[in-house]
């Protein structure tokens, strides 16, 4: 079974440029997450989708970040315009939420390493 796929793996851009990251979750997973991982830190949630609905985007800087999950499968995270401080690894994860246990195992993709110059 294929894991969570992310592209690109690496991206270098100049500040003020737009950038987009793509995520394809594990087949059948209804919940998708985008995390930000700064150097030397643990991942921090940016947004969580359940199917097509963004159910937790409280940590997403909405002035420059946007995300979408059309048809409840793939997802795109966009930054426009990028700033120097956005340099980090952007991780996508997915899980199958439901059943008697109120939590679900999240499976992570390899991440996209963004460098803003």
């Amino acid at each position, binding site marked *: 079974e294929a894991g969570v796929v992310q592209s690109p793996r690496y991206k270098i851009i100049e500040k003020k440029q737009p950038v987009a990251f793509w995520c394809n979750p594990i087949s059948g997973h209804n919940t998708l997450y985008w995390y930000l991982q700064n150097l030397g830190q643990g991942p921090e949630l940016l947004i*969580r989708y359940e199917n097509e609905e963004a159910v937790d985007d409280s940590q997403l800087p909405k002035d420059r970040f946007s995300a979408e999950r059309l048809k409840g499968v793939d997802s795109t995270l966009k930054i426009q315009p990028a700033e120097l401080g956005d340099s980090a690894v952007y991780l996508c994860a997915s899980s199958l*939420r439901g059943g008697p246990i109120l*939590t679900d195992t999240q499976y992570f*993709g*390899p991440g996209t390493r963004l460098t803003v110059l």
Partner: protein
Amino acid sequence: AQSVTQLDSQVPVFEEAPVELRCNYSSSVSVYLFWYVQYPNQGLQLLLKYLSGSTLVESINGFEAEFNKSQTSFHLRKPSVHISDTAEYFCAVSDQAGYSTLTFGKGTMLLVSP
């Protein structure tokens, strides 16, 4: 809201020696606990998790962790490490209120040398 503290940013150890990576959490509600491992240039992989039942949980590659509610800890241990265990280890917590958002610690880099 929860928080996770991993006091050791780096733990150097010799091959075949035992190791303990410490994790303490803070939460006002009951939690689930996880350990993830991240190898260089790879995504996070679930190592083990505590949801309920026995407080001692084990992974397939020899790691184990014990949930201690009174000390709010979930330390990770391995009796004998290998070179291949060199990686970053993250402790994470989620609450039991029906939300699966993970709160991660800052991670501990385990460096195994021959």
